[in-house]
């Protein structure tokens, strides 16, 4: 059995971790490095830093934050948002990131996944999908959930795997920030469609939401934000609860 990774997702705008609903209406919750350190010391397994406004400005502004964070945080760090080229990826890795999450640029130019995974290895390339429910399925969105692409999210996940992505980060834009639970159906579809690890993001509002997701979809990782940003639970409380329910996580 693998241990489900509990991953803190820190969406960052202008030097602050922010939190919105459906990736919109952003509210400041704190300093990214301080929060990363706090979650690390409390036992989080991984940290994802997302530049929430990068696609709009067409660049990622988090490199200096990653550089500082990895001096004190000794767990895997992912950077995402506004990464547009192999030279951006190189810069991100040099600033200390272990993995790169690609969404908008991968849709525009799928070859970047192929090229980047060939150069740096699949293990450091995460295909990030922001999905919204449509009549029949889910569609992939870009620019932080703002722009639709006409691409089916499940097909896109398979394509990302074929291109060489090492993991899939699936964010439900509908559930994101709502604290109303994950889009379990979406996550189940994605985990069923690919054979690489899947990280589920968007909607965690209670311990039960996390338990239900692990039991029904068995994802590689579960991303959480509101739960810990708003101090509803601490990382160690969440882990304790999962262990009490015989779910496999790192103690």
């Amino acid at each position, binding site marked *: *059995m*693998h*241990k489900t*990774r509990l991953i803190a997702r820190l969406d960052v705008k202008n030097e602050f971790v922010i939190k919105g609903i459906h990736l919109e209406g952003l509210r400041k919750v704190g300093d990214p490095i301080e929060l990363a350190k706090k979650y*690390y010391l409390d036992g989080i*397994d991984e940290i994802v830093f997302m530049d929430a406004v990068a696609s709009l400005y067409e660049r990622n502004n988090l490199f200096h934050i990653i*550089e500082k964070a*990895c*001096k004190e945080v*000794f*767990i*895997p760090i992912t950077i995402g948002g506004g990464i547009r080229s192999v030279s951006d990826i190189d810069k991100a*890795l*040099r*600033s*200390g*990131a*272990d993995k790169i999450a690609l969404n908008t640029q991968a849709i525009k130019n799928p070859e970047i996944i192929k090229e980047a995974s060939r150069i*740096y*290895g*699949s*293990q*450091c390339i995460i295909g990030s999908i922001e999905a919204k429910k449509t009549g029949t399925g889910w569609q992939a969105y870009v620019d932080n959930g703002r722009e639709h692409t006409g691409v089916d999210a499940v097909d896109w996940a398979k394509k990302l795997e074929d291109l060489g992505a*090492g*993991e899939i980060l699936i964010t439900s834009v509908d559930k994101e920030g709502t604290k109303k639970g994950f889009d379990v159906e979406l996550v189940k579809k994605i985990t069923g469609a690919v*054979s*690489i*690890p899947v990280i589920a993001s968007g909607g965690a509002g209670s311990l039960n939401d996390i338990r239900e997701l692990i039991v029904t979809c*068995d994802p*590689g990782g579960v991303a959480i934000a509101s739960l810990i940003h708003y101090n509803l639970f601490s990382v160690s409380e969440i882990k304790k609860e999962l262990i009490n329910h015989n779910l496999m996580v*790192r*103690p």
Partner: protein
Amino acid sequence: MIKKKIAIIDYGIGNVKSILNALDNFNAETILTNKPEDILNADGVILPGVGAFKTGMENLIAHDLIPVIKQYVKTGKPFLGICLGMQLLLDESEEFGNTKGLGLIKGKVKKLVIDETTNERLPHVSWNEIKEPEKNRWQNSILENVQQFSDVYFVHSFAAAPSTEADILATCNYGNKDFCAAVKKENVFGVQFHPEKSGKTGLAILKKFIDLIK
């Protein structure tokens, strides 16, 4: 106290920033280098690396580092390979056809085998527990201060299969199969996981590596 000089081999592969940052916590002076004199003069040497075995070997060859590494290892000073850096210690790898390795540990690098009934995925991206193959094998090694079944962070699809059982320092179970998670042969150590990404446990391993320097 005189700081111990640790050379981290720079051969254009992988994220080494975290290794440098982790070592900064301890009594070490770090240098990221591919110069033979820096490597030979170091008190301890780390070979990092992620990605493909073939690219790793090609880059070592391109920087003319193989004879330097072999010469350093003969001095008896501690050497640590991390992730791909561990796999490169073996004789060869079956990733993308057979590629010759450094041959410092006898055996092959093979694709992880998963028991199909487990539904586990590859790559193995997970925190997972390491186990001592027999009592006291961790004594005087980089794992001496680590508790049995401690969790460390893995991200890989291939793993070393040393042909000499005594060279296996730790094992890990994934997909209902054991694989080799760490090796030791005299002064040569290798870990498949990332100590620099494994929180407190990982830091204790790196600290012990520095403490092994005489």
